[in-house]
């Protein structure tokens, strides 16, 4: 039970870059990824902004190094791309040299292809190409990633709405702690689909001007797509292989708000509990957190609830805090792991990210988020929050080793 958990590789693809290098450039230039829809064929093309990965299936297939055979969902391709980067950075040449698992997360799975199927199937249930529906379930994208990387020892998928991939990181960490696996590729992937765009639109929580987390005038979230993966390894595996360590996972907490299926409790009870649990597992004091990468979706409800929970936990000394969703959009099942990768970069480079498009402090909160990119700040411990529908809240803490 005493194994420490180290991050040895990360991978990321989102609207602000196809890899870590491009992502870092965008972050340093405060260049957000939200814009007009050009990839998704929707009625709302000119009306609702999103954070798209500007690459089609042929380009993504090439990046993922898989055949463009019409058998991969967009979600799978995004996942394979980020997962490969993480494995490469971790310098794992032989995946079977240690007991390795994959825990991926997704909310829509292969919905991009299911939509194509359904369009025809709806009119006549003998229509619709079957190859478009076999990628529907969430497990499909995970198995595509596992097969591309030859991971066999443990394969699983988590779906807890917007906290899905934070939970993948949490469970992967615990599997190492429990001595079940030596290393786990953990993360999540979600493609933009008509299903999610219309879903959130029907809830009337998409900001037509792009999300403005923690702003008094905020008016909803902005959807994004992408994938983030982290290779995490046990201390003994890292030592045995003389690995370069990027950072350590020191804390994790999962709690349920149990308030409402889609709304968070006004006082942020679940958010408070997940952050508190993460601090407790890490053994850190609240004052030792140097940066909070907030869930900060930009909806009226989330930011108030999360803000109140942060105030309650951190009292009068709230650490620098920002939401990076104006950069990447809200990538749903991938959000927790994309933001985890950003946290790793923050620790490695001693960065703190700006909360883009913030103007006016919320009247109900005592604090404002960070608004300018900050270099050379001592960043030792970072907290990352991910909260989802159903009140599924998860917080993670990453620390410099």
């Amino acid at each position, binding site marked *: 039970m005493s194994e420490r958990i180290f991050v040895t590789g990360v991978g990321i693809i989102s609207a602000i870059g196809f890899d870590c290098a491009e992502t870092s450039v965008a972050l340093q230039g405060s260049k957000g990824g939200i814009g007009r829809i050009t990839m998704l064929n929707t009625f709302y093309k000119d009306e609702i902004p999103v954070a798209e990965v500007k690459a089609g299936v042929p380009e993504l297939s090439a990046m993922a190094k898989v055949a463009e055979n019409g058998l991969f969902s967009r979600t799978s391709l995004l996942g394979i791309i980020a997962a490969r980067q993480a494995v490469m950075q971790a310098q794992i040449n032989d995946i079977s040299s240690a007991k390795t698992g994959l825990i991926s997360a997704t909310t829509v799975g292969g919905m991009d292809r299911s939509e194509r199927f359904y369009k025809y199937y709806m009119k006549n249930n*003998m229509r619709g190409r079957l190859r478009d529906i076999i990628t529907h379930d969430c497990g499909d994208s995970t198995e595509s990633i596992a097969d591309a990387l030859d991971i066999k020892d443990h394969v699983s998928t988590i779906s807890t709405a917007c906290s899905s991939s934070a939970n993948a990181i949490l469970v992967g960490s615990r599997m190492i702690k429990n001595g079940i696996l030596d290393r786990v590729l953990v993360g999540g992937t979600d493609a933009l689909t008509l299903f999610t765009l219309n879903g959130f639109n029907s809830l009337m929580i998409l900001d037509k001007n792009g999300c403005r987390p923690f702003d008094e005038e905020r008016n909803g979230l902005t959807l994004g797509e992408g994938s983030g993966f982290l290779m995490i390894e046990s201390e003994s595996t890292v030592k045995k292989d003389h690995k370069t360590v990027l950072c350590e996972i020191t804390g994790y907490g999962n709690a349920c708000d*149990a308030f409402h299926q*889609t709304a968070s409790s006004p006082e942020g009870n679940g958010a408070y509990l997940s952050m508190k649990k993460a601090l407790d597992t890490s053994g850190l004091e609240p004052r030792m957190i140097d940066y909070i990468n907030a869930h900060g979706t930009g909806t009226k409800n989330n930011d108030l609830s999360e803000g109140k929970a942060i105030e309650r936990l951190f009292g009068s000394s709230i650490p620098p805090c920002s939401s990076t969703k104006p950069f990447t959009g809200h990538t749903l099942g991938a959000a927790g792991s994309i933001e985890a990768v950003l946290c790793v970069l923050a620790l490695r480079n001693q960065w703190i990210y700006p909360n883009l498009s913030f103007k006016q402090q919320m009247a109900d909160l005592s604090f404002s988020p960070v608004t300018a990119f900050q270099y050379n700040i001592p960043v030792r411990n970072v907290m990352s929050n991910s909260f989802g*529908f*159903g009140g*599924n809240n998860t917080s993670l803490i990453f620390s410099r080793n």
Partner: protein
Amino acid sequence: MEAYIQGIGVISPQKTFTGNGFLQDAMEYNDVNYIKCLEPVYGDFIDPMVARRMSRIVKMGVCAALKCLRDAGIENPDAIITGTGLGCIEDTEKFLGSLYASEEQLLNPTPFIQSTHNTIAAAIALKLKCNSYNNTYVHRGFSFESALLDSMMLLQEGSASNILTGGMDELTPNSFAITNRLGFWKEKTVNNLRLLDYKNKGSLAGEGVAFFALSHSKNDKSLARISAVSTLYKPQSADEVTARLSGFIQKSAGVAGDIDLVMLGMNGDPVQDKIYHHIMSNFFSPVQCTFYKHLCGEYDTAASFALYLATMIIKEQRVPAILKCNDRPVRKIKNVLIYNHFRNINHAMFLITSC
């Protein structure tokens, strides 16, 4: 890692929720290519106003969960963990359908909200006002298995004493029509109780919900113990299965001779059933072997139904004849091995022990 089963709530095509006794009279379905759950009276468990807004699988899930907790005498668990292959597929279909029908306009958000895979675990937490650990696994034939594994880890970590863990999948007209086109099911209708007699390809579609109250310690309510769970992804050969199973038995029970009862996930598809016959003849020819998918049908989380059966068999020390696929002398049932695979991709083994 281990877990004691303290309570059960099962909704299935059998009288598992309200019936008297354990499989006293098995439900026989004639001329079918799918079997569906016998649904309980929801009003006994859920406020009708609340139930009205819930989809079928959410209602079944919440009901089975509440019955399970009542059975175990637990008011509020320290964790709620679910596993589901396809989640709330009915609402997913509903929202997809209306999306195209209305050309993306004026959509009702309710099916979207309820389509999320974690809806059932969340609805239970909401009903119980349970703020503790909550997680949902969604991986084909590893969904329930992952949920169990997580539960056993939590118990070992000491961060939970009582956990509510469940597996669930629903069958809808569309999910049946689509999987039927994919060739999952038998072309001609069957009698479920004679599922293994048909030699043509395909299986019998099914569905079900099974919840278990798991505890880290044994008490007078303990029905059985889950001693080990292990998964095997895409085995390349029968030898790989044999090797893994052999290692699993060695680690958890000792030798194959220590297994008193075997439960195999045979689903009537001759190709998919091959591996079960291989396991039977290689390890367990002197052992009583049973099967169960003629009673629940085939679905992603069908192993949860097997776990229910194993628990009841251990509790009652009785193997209903309807389950037997060979006939061996009766002996005291201490160790039950469950071997299940989903489409030859996701293989799983469980050891259930009397306590």
